[in-house]
């Protein structure tokens, strides 16, 4: 097919839209806006309507579900408080055990220190008497013995 220059000029020639063009366009715009507003609202109301319709139609089920949820929450809360209580008791027992362990360690250290002190005094006594004997000085025991005699 071949278009001549005249054909193109005729096709692209300015035409008068006629009277009331602006009104028609504005009316279309208004219509499109109104349709845009109502369409999604219609869709939503349809869904919500289905959901709400369920609980309005079956209130017993709704109450049962709510009651179950409340029971669940109450049971969960009770369990949590029990867990916290058990945890507190466990922590207290652990602290008590640690304190007892520390006390035992201190006691063992004290026992060891006491044994060491006694050992040190034994060595001191033995060496003191040895030196005094070597130096021909009467030792404490000998002195006591002499005093008794």
């Amino acid at each position: 097919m071949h278009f001549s220059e005249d054909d193109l000029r005729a096709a692209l020639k300015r035409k008068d839209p006629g009277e009331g063009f602006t009104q028609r366009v504005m009316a279309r715009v208004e219509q499109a806006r109104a349709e845009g507003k109502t369409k999604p609202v219609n869709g939503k109301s349809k869904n919500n309507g289905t959901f709400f319709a369920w609980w309005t139609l079956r209130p017993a089920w709704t109450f049962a579900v709510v009651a179950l949820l409340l029971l669940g929450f109450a049971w969960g809360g009770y369990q949590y408080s029990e867990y916290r209580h058990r945890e507190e008791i466990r922590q207290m027992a652990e602290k008590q055990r640690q304190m007892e362990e520390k006390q035992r360690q201190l006691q063992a250290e004290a026992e060891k220190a006491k044994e060491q002190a006694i050992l040190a005094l034994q060595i001191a006594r033995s060496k003191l008497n040895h030196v005094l004997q070597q130096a021909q000085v009467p030792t404490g025991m000998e002195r006591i013995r002499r005093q008794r005699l």
Partner: protein
Amino acid sequence: MNRVTRIAIRILMGLALCCACMRGYCQDAKLQLDNLNKLSDKAARVTDVTLDGSLLQFAIGLIEKTDDGDEDIAQLKSIVKNLKGIYVKSFEFDEASQYSKADVESVRSQITARWTKIVQSIDKRNNEHDEIYVLKSGEHVAGVLILVAEPRELTVVNIVGDVPVEKIAALEHHFVPNEKESGKKQKKEKSHDED
């Protein structure tokens, strides 16, 4: 500066001086025996006791809690109650001359003029050198050093505090409370058996 302030400053300075003197005495009474630690490798038997501060207080507390009925335990309590530190280093060697004179000298060099040598025994035949030093603080004893240097044994005992030397020397050989208790038990058992 008024008169009251001057008096207060003098009192404080006097107290500080007293504290410094007391601290000086305590530090003098405690000797450094760590340089003898090197002998541990050569020694066949090592006895190392270091008791001071809270550990000694624990020990004293336990000894004081022990049953008071026994005369020796009462004596033990009277010995330990004023002690501030007990340091013992004893080395027994299998062979003679395992330690040098320098080792002994390292301890002896710490003896200041305040220490008094109360006993010295030199046995050249057996190559034995024993000494007892006492550090006096007024009427009280602030520390004791017992140095026993035998060919196969070196023992240094350093006791800090008010040490009743006579009481230590007069202690019974078997004064360890546990041993005494076990001995008593054995005696009781024997008497039961006889009955």
